[in-house]
């Protein structure tokens, strides 16, 4: 049972993944930038920095996956 062609699904996934990964990359990079002057001895600040770095890596993984699929 299919509602739309498979190609449409592929392009939908491509578009959504690229859009969200790019937005995620910008958002977590911006979060990291905001924390540049924060006290890194504070565990909460360190948690945030770690989380945002993981977010940036995840976003890059998403973008690379899309590029791999289309090359």
């Amino acid at each position, binding site marked *: *049972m*299919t*509602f*739309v062609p498979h190609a449409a*699904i*592929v392009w939908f*996934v491509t578009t959504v*993944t690229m859009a969200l990964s790019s937005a*995620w990359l910008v958002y*977590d990079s911006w979060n990291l930038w*905001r*924390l540049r002057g*924060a006290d890194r001895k*504070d*565990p*909460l*600040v360190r*948690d*945030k920095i*770690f*989380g*945002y*770095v*993981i*977010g940036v*890596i*995840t976003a890059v*993984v*998403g973008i690379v*996956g*899309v590029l*791999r*699929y289309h090359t």
Partner: protein
Amino acid sequence: MSNRMSNPMSSSSAARSTSAPPATAPRLVSPYNPANAVTASRFLTLPPFLWAVHHGHYQIAAVAIVVCALLDKVDGLVAKVFDCRSSFGELFDAITDGVCYGFCLIVLAVYGWAPAVAVVAALGLGGLNSVFRAIHIKRVGRPVNYKSYAMERLVGFIAYLVGFAVARYEVTYYYWTFLPLMVVVVAHDAKRMLLDPVPPPPAADGATSTSELVAKEGV
């Protein structure tokens, strides 16, 4: 994973004014509230998902997982609108995330839509993380959910993993890239929950420490 407790709008003004008199005791929230109802409704997407995968209807499976992911976002919004955020709600949300996405991953692995070894490893790490969280609650002595910024991002990735497998989109790459990230985050969170000092009990305005007051200011 929705973020039910990270930006408590109602207490932010109290947090800003540290010289203000102590607020009254935190409002008790029933577990039977609209936000938890939305969270629980996510389980209803699982039977259609299983049926769709079993019959090979990948587009219906995709719709089911999209609805599940959207409800994950809606429950946080409902909690804010109805002012029914609670520690239990946050914990229930995290458990529902694990059950829903775990179920979907298992189904996908069983039907050969996702690499079984990667799925088993990811679920094992997720289970280990849950055990660490339970030990953390025992250490702290009250129902508290350790807020892991990194795990929040990986849970979002897990939702995507289900979508990639359903759409058969770079499945091997995404699943095997996810695992090392998961290992690093679980190790980091284990250290924070099991070895680092226990956070102090919450103050009257809901903040637990100076650093949390700073966090509420949005640093």
